[in-house]
């Protein structure tokens, strides 16, 4: 009998030892990969970056930049009344930090200088966007949650101006990295330039110009701007536009289009703020930007935020909406355009007297915009504007600001809104002046007349989860470069 017991014990022990061995090997998730190649991570980062830019920023900015306004059929929303909720931007931060920037960080650490350069340029691009909307944000110890990175789970917030300084340096790093590349490291996974690294260098420098010019009212950037213009390697034609294409089929649609169509569709109509300017300037782009109202047969808009004053019986077909160039499944997401850079150069020439010819740069900006929209005769239009390099700087900035804002309509709405905030100063209230400003005060604004949003609120998720986050902002808090 004892023999039997012994056997049973031995058998149990054997079974036990066999099955204990290799237990940790089971704990590998068969559905997820412990590693990834930079190619696929680059695609992922660009996908998320495009979502943030197009569906988060531009979708808000077409309203606050007063290109489009709330149309009939849906009760007036918060953002049409300048009311913000703390959870408006939870999704934006999740995509920007936990996806795009986290993926880009993986790339910046790649030994291949091509991937690290592209990673750094896009990192700078996204951080600039975060600063331009939120001011102080986590930067220097953000994205360091991994144990190997020091387990920084609640990053501190950095001063917005300091982040700007760091972004210039980060882009310098990227350009240095690019100098070490052979040029053929990246291919189709680069959804912006298809692996053309010379375009990335151009984009990086153009981004430096944007970052510098953004603070031109508050910091001394003259020398650096002059140098960039001097070097001349800036986006200067449509082939160099930093943009990402979409197939226009389900799953691969323009993010703004997909987002709006997944709900009740595009119910926004043309804002009179935009129509008034285009009409006053006799701007031929008006027809490229807005369709005629189907029920009326001509372009009809609504004063910003005033749809509730329209007849109750009004329907969407009584008004104009954006054309297919501005809203469509296959439209690209434009990160940076040649017209944007030409207007930056015109402004730099006006402010600092750079190597560029100011009037030419201005005309090139308009021509680039006309070209993209397929509108003829930019020259005649530019001539009609009568840009005078001898006029006062305020007068020239007013003209550049207006043209830049028009050129961003429907394509880079967010850049249009941001630059409107910057160009508009107490001494030169181009947009917000109650009598002559371009912007209209929405009828049911929660802010005072002539007061428009200057920022986003911090996301509620970040406020509740990060004890280091500063006190909540309000909509009129200005970003450091905003006078």
């Amino acid at each position, binding site marked *: 009998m004892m023999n039997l017991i012994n056997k049973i014990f031995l058998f149990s022990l054997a079974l036990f030892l066999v099955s204990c061995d290799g237990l940790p090997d089971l704990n590998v998730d068969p559905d*997820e990969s*412990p590693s990834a190649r930079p190619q696929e991570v680059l695609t992922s980062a*660009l996908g998320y970056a495009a979502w943030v830019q197009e569906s988060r920023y531009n979708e808000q900015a077409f309203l606050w930049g007063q290109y489009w306004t709330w149309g009939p059929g849906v009760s007036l929303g918060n953002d049409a009344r300048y009311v913000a909720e703390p959870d408006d931007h939870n999704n934006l931060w999740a995509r920007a930090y936990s996806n795009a920037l986290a993926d880009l960080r993986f790339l910046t650490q790649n030994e291949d200088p091509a991937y690290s350069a592209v990673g750094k340029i896009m990192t700078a691009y996204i951080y600039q966007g975060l600063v331009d909307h939120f001011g102080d944000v986590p930067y220097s110890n953000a994205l360091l949650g*991994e144990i190997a990175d020091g387990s920084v789970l609640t990053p501190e917030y950095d001063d917005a101006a300091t982040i700007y300084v760091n972004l210039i340096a980060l882009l310098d790093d990227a350009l240095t990295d690019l100098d070490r590349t052979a040029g053929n490291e990246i291919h189709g996974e680069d959804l912006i330039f298809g692996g053309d690294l010379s375009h990335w260098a151009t984009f990086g420098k153009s981004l430096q110009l944007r970052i510098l010019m953004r603070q031109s009212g508050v910091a001394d950037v003259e020398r650096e701007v002059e140098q960039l213009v001097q070097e001349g390697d800036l986006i200067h034609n449509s082939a160099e536009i930093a943009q990402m294409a979409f197939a226009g089929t*389900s799953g691969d*649609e323009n993010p703004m289009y997909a987002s709006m169509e997944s709900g009740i569709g595009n119910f926004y109509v043309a804002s009179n703020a935009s129509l008034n300017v285009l009409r006053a300037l006799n701007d031929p782009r008006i027809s490229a930007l807005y369709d005629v109202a189907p029920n009326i047969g001509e372009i009809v808009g609504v004063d910003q935020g005033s749809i509730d004053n329209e007849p*109750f019986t*009004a329907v969407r077909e009584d008004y104009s909406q954006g054309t297919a160039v501005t809203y469509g499944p296959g439209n690209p997401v434009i990160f940076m355009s040649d017209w944007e850079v030409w207007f930056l150069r015109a402004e730099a020439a006006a402010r600092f007297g750079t190597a560029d010819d100011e009037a030419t740069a201005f005309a090139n900006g308009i021509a680039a915009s006309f070209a993209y929209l397929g509108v003829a005769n930019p020259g005649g239009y530019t001539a009609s504007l009568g840009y005078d390099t001898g006029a006062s700087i305020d007068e020239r900035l007013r003209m550049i600001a207006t043209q830049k804002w028009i050129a961003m309509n429907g394509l880079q709405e967010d850049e249009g809104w941001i630059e409107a905030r910057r160009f508009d100063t107490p001494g030169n209230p181009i947009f917000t002046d109650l009598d002559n400003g371009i912007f209209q005060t929405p009828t049911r604004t929660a802010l005072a007349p002539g007061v428009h949003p200057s920022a986003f609120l911090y996301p509620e*998720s970040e406020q509740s989860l990060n004890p280091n986050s500063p006190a909540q902002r309000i909509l009129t808090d200005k970003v450091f470069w905003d006078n």
Partner: protein
Amino acid sequence: MKRLNLVFLLLLAVVSFSYAQRTVSGTITDQEGEPLIGASILAKGTTTGTVTDFDGNYALEVPEGTTELEFSYTGFATQTLALGASNVLDVKMSEGLLLDAVVVSATGLDRNARDVTYHNQTVKSDDLLTVPSKNSLEALRGKVAGVKLSTGSGSVGASTRIVLRGEGSLTGDNNALIVVDGIVIDNEASLGGTDADEGGASTGYADYGNRFNDINPEDIESITVLKGPSATSLYGSRGASGVLLITTKKGSKGGRLRVGINSTTSFEQAYVLLQRQDRYGQGFGLPFSETPSFDSGENWSWGPEFDGVVRPWTSPIDSDGDGDLEFLSRPYSAVPNQLENFFRTGRTLANSINLSGGNEKVTYYASYSNTTQEGILENTDYNRNTVKFASSAKFSKRLSTNFSVSYANVVQNSAQEGSRPFEGQNAYANAVQSPVNIPFTELRDYNSPFHDFGGYYGSYTSNPYYILNEFINEGRIDNFLGTFSTTLNIIDGLDLTARIGTNVVDRTIREATAQYAYADHYVWADNLVASTRGGRANSPGFFSQTEGTNSNLDVTGLLNYSRALDRSGALSLNVTLGYNNFTRTTRSVTGSTVGGIIVPEFYNLANSVQAPLASQSSSKYRIIGGFANAQIGYQNRLFLEYSARNDWSSTLQAENNSFFYQSVGVSSVVTDFFENRNENIDYVKFRASIGTTGKDAQLYALQSTFIGNPIFQPLANGRDLTFPLNGQAGFTLGNSIGNPDLKPELTTTFEIGVDATLFKDRVDLAYTYYNSRHTNQLVEVSLPNSSGFTRTVRNLGEISNQGHELSLTIRPIKGLVKGLTWDLDLIWSTNQNEVIEILDPAVDGEELTLGTFGGVAVVAREGLPYGTFRGNVVATTDAGETIVDAQGLPIQTERPEDLGSYQPDWLGSVGSRIGYKGLVLNFLFDIRQGGKFLSYTKDLTEFNGTALTTVERFRDAFVFPNSFTEVEEGYQVENTTMTNRYDFLRVQPFSSHLIDASFVKLREIGLTYNVPARFTEGIFISNLTVGLFARNVMFWLPEENVWADPEINGPSLTGNATGIETTQTPPSRSFGINIGVKF
């Protein structure tokens, strides 16, 4: 023919005949002469027997050769009496042996109740089935101390969450482990729906129930609730949140074939707890205008005051093609019982049959059951078929086996729950937010031209009946459970038991959104001006199918040795050594259409506009345990028990994956130490135990990973944005930080208690105090996005749970009136939960967020109960006046504040059973005091103007009372700015939706009549029972709760951020009849 034949086939009648020589009859009573109903009488050495009727009478045809009769009755000593010359044999049976009742121990072996050193409570089949329930977990409500149950929905087949003694794990699974006949079953809830991956919070989810639902309640013999860690040594890590031990029916040795048939029919009506205003109708006004406008397309009820004037309420359409427009009209007034009439009357039909029998060598039990339910929502139904076969055999003196297989098939048509009516998936949320003048009874005909896509009134919603009838949320479950155990008696006192069980759950979930396109429609405005309105959301159609299998294999070996240690037998020893290996494998594959479907109403992946999307997931988990348990008894009245266990888990690194824990307990039946004790003290047992339990980590938490080709933005209506993008694959860094250093979680529990029977069996009392400390907590931490991640799992913190559990049964009139019995059951428990410490240098702020919803976070915070709500509140001055802004609206505090938790102060129940002869009346009240829940229904109805809170002050402009404007820090002036009700409600912090979750519920009333045997004599019926019952008869809620049932929470059913209500289907009140026949 004298032997019973046994055939191993289901539903095959087994009949026994015996040659009767004589008939013996008599009456069986207790010591006081009370008849004992249902006592067993067995002709010794045969399988022939009978039971007494409710007068205690029996008559048995005794087979030839029988010399003795055996009399037995639960709780009484079994007596064997020799047959004399007389054919009348009256028996007076002795009680007291109740104390020797057998309980199921943690090792799955039967044990004498008196030597158990920890608290355990067993609910018998009869108590579970007093009133039929939709599942056995529901039937436990109010019957066990320290059990907290919450339900995912009032819809058919929904999940039930069960937590014993409060949550002990910060972010792990706090559900009790469910063990059927020694085998751990898979109790995972099956969720589906458009947003199941994210807990269904944002768009919707469908609840296909947890798998315990698949068990036929009639098959359950008893449910034992084990709470302390000394009770969970067999299940180790997995049993750390407590164990529900289910013992199923096996068939008794008592002779002949027994057949039981049970049939229940009941009707369910929605118990709508939401109260809505009935003064203002469809339209819009505030905040845009003080004069409201009528708008027949609105989902808002901010329109004009009701005036009773007949107006059109459907969109004008040309329904007959004559070129003129037609519409339906009704008086502009609130529809009475509007929401109640949104639902239909549900119906449940449950039938079951079981056969059982056996002899000394073999027992068997077979059953079949069918439950068919039609839910209170249209096109929701539930159909469950179960078969079970169990048998035990004793092959020799030394070898015996138990064998059981059961299979359940469930087909369920569900409806989506969740908070977002705009996406058009949750029909009830859609109903909740419709104006109060819309008659649902008419909308039900959703194909009518007045209610289809052209005529339907709403500009922003779809006809909820269209959603219910044309969308598909179908779950099919196949659940197989097989167990086999064999016990070899090696030498006297030494038994070796091997047990193997497998539970395979296969699920197929099909979900479809219909394809539809709206035309522009007409709406009516003020003065009945009609105009067209377009832009209603269209659906390209969507279909997905998930096929998944969870396989669980549970292998146990037990070596049990028991013997007397000395010659007199005063000292006894019992030692158990055990080994357990549990492996769980899951895999599932989901296919879904992309870009819509081509052919409407054809739901197949081949019908996808673009190439369908496939995704798969699988996992494997293993835990191995070795354990030992030793017990020494002295004179069967003093017991000392020690147990130790080591677990090895696959979820931890090799250096951390082994964890050891142990427990020690002592119990003493003190009344046995006194020869001449007070006659009012029948039995008193004290018990005390202390022990630890470990808990391993969740799967795959050790390593950060990349996710291949994710959906990078989920969007409704088939518009998810996904990789590959432009033909390029995308891999994104996962959002969870891997933590290779995880260690097991440890719980230390101390408990003391007393079990007593007093006043000659008139009072039974069980009291337990416990104190648990949960250290090294494995916590899933939500992270700010700026960390680059959204979550991680870490060891941190400590939680304590301490509480009291009391159950008291009083039989106040015992023995006073012949035939009249009255039992009163009182159960009360309280649990104090506190998060003691959150320790991690990487987490500041002594706080963890479990989940957030609309700006209110559910957190674990030092010094506060687990599950505390935190959110901003209305800011006040030092003197308590409300601070308002320039618009006269209250402003919110800058930082969130603590706002109470979802933990109740106490839970209790009062049950009573009054019996006279064969008639039994019972009722059960269930009480919860304290705790809060967050009501999304409140938010939704305040937004759309149907909430009662929207009609205060008749919607007139008002100055917020006792409010001040802060001119500068610390200096305030009285506010005189008028505000309006809409803006006022909209600026309220989301925390204003926190509602007192207390309730009193009259859970059950039942009236059962046991038909006297004399009426059924001669028709082979040994017992006939007819019962009428009602469930959820009445709820009493706090005055502030006009919103929802606090017990229905979602969507994270097994998660911990409960206490959030998102317009789930309400509960139902049911009335039914039950007939039980035994042959």
